[in-house]
C-alpha cells in the first residue's frame, strides 16, 4: 500500500515486519557477526574437548571406568562450555546501544531474545553436538550410546542456552556481571544434566531412553515459552 511520506510521518510508525521475518533478520545478523569473528564458536568447542580430555589424567585410563563416566563427563563439560559463552549473548549489544534500539523496535523483545538465543545455539550448541562423538570415542562409549547422546544433547543444549539467556540478561550492568552468571544459572541446569546423562545410561543398560528424552523435550518447550519472556523483562530493566 503505497503511503506517501507525510501520511506515514503524521499518522504513526509502520507495523514492523511479521514475527517470523523479524526473528529471521535478527538471527541472520547475529550469524553474520559470528562468522565475521569465528573465534568465539571455536573457543567453546576447544574448551569442551580440552576439559573432557582432562578427566582421564585425573581418574586414570581404566577402560570400563571411563566408559561408565563418559555421558557424565560429556554433559558436564558441554554445560560448562555453554556457560562460558553466555556473557557475550547480550553484553556487546548492551554496550554499543543496539539493545536500546531493539527494545524500541516493533519486533517484540521476547522474539528478539529467542532469535539471539537461536543464533547463540547455532554458534555454540551445534558445534558441541558435532564435537561430542569425538569425546565419546575417547572414552570408549559403546556404539549404541552415540545416537541417544546426540539426541539428548540436541534437546538439552538449546534449553541450556535459553535458561542461560535469563542469567545473562539479569547480570547486564552488574558489577562483575560475568562472574555472577554461573551462580545464577548452574542450579537451574541440574534437571537438564540429570535427564541428559540418565538418557544415555538407560540406553547403555538396554532400557529405552524414551522417558528421559520426552522429559527433556518438555523442558525445552517450557524454556522456549518462559525464558525469552523472563529475559525480555530483565533486558527492559537493563536499558532503563
Amino acid at each position, binding site marked *: 500500500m503505497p503511503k506517501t511520506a507525510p501520511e506515514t510521518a*503524521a499518522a*504513526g*510508525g*509502520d507495523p514492523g515486519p511479521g514475527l517470523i521475518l523479524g526473528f529471521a*533478520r535478527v538471527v541472520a545478523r547475529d550469524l553474520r557477526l559470528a562468522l565475521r569473528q569465528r573465534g568465539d564458536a571455536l573457543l567453546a568447542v576447544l574448551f569442551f574437548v580440552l576439559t573432557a580430555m582432562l578427566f582421564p589424567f585425573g581418574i586414570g585410563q581404566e577402560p570400563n571406568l571411563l566408559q561408565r563416566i563418559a555421558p557424565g563427563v560429556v554433559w558436564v563439560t558441554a554445560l560448562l562450555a555453554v556457560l562460558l559463552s553466555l556473557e557475550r549473548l547480550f553484553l556487546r549489544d548492551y554496550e554499543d546501544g*543496539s539493545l536500546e534500539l*531493539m527494545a*524500541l*523496535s516493533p519486533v517484540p523483545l521476547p522474539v528478539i531474545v529467542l532469535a539471539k538465543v537461536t543464533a547463540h545455539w547455532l554458534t555454540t550448541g551445534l558445534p558441541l553436538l558435532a564435537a561430542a562423538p569425538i569425546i565419546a570415542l575417547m572414552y570408549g562409549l559403546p556404539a549404541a550410546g552415540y545416537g541417544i547422546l546426540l539426541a539428548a544433547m540436541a534437546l538439552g543444549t538449546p534449553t541450556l542456552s535459553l535458561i542461560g539467556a535469563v542469567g545473562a540478561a539479569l547480570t547486564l550492568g552488574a558489577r562483575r556481571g560475568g562472574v555472577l552468571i554461573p551462580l545464577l544459572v548452574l542450579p537451574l541446569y541440574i534437571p537438564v544434566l540429570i535427564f541428559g546423562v540418565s538418557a544415555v545410561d538407560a540406553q547403555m543398560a538396554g532400557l529405552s531412553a524414551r522417558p528421559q528424552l520426552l522429559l527433556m523435550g518438555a523442558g525445552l518447550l517450557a524454556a522456549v515459552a518462559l525464558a525469552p519472556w523472563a529475559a525480555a523483562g530483565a533486558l527492559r530493566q537493563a536499558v*532503563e
Partner: protein
Amino acid sequence: MAADNSSQAASAPSAAPAAPSGRPRAGVRFAGRDLGCVRGDRAIFAGLDFDLPAGGALVLSGPNGSGKSSLLRVLASLLPPAAGQLLWDGADVARDPEAHRARLHYQGHHEALKPELTAAENLGFWAGLQDKSAGAVARALARFGLADLADQPVRLLSAGQRRRLSLSRILAAPAPLWLLDEPSVGLDARSVRTLEAEIEAHRAAGGLVVLATHQPLDLADPRALSVDDFPPAPVTADDDPWAGALW
C-alpha cells in the same frame, strides 16, 4: 519506582488546546503532564509539563546532569516515569507502549553500529526491523553523503562518518516522533546543515522533534524547555511521609 496512578485522577488532561500556531490541520499532539523521573535512588526532575504540536520542535537545554537525557529516555518509554503521564493525541502512552514505540526514533549517545558489518548491512538490519526495503536504506545513506561508503566495514569509518551513519538510520524508516540526544556532536559544519534540513523536512511533513543539544541548531520557532526549571522537591519537604513515624 512506584508508578503512581492515584495522582493522575487529580490532573485529568483537559481537551488538547487548539493548535496555537493556528495551523488548520488538526495534527497530532505530544504532551507530558506532571512528569517525574527517578534514576537509581536519585530524583532527577518532577512536575515537568510540556506540549508539542505536529510540526513542532522542542529543544531541551540545561547543564550537564540536569536530566535532559533522562527526559528523552522517559519520552522514548525506555525509562518508565516515576510520576505523571505522557499523552499522544490525548491518549495515555502507557496504555499502548507498542504503538508508542512504533511511532518514534530514539538516537542516544551510542551509535548502535557493529564494526565488523558494513554501513549498508548495519542500516539494513535496523531498517529491516522496521520492515523497510534496501531502497530506503540507499536513499537514507545518500541524504547524509554516505552513498560511496555503503560497502565499507564500519570499523574503517571516522567518528563523524559513524555519527552520520547512525543519524541516517532515522531517515531509512519514517516515524512521526524523533527523539535526538545531542545529534550534532561530532558532526562537521556541512553535516550539521544537512541535519537541520532533514529536521525541517520532517517537521514540514507533520513530524515532531524533541532534541537535547549544547550547540544551538537554527530551527524555525523551536520551543525551549529547561529541565532545570523542574527540580525534584527535596526529600525533607513538609509532606515528608516519614514524619512522626520513626520515634
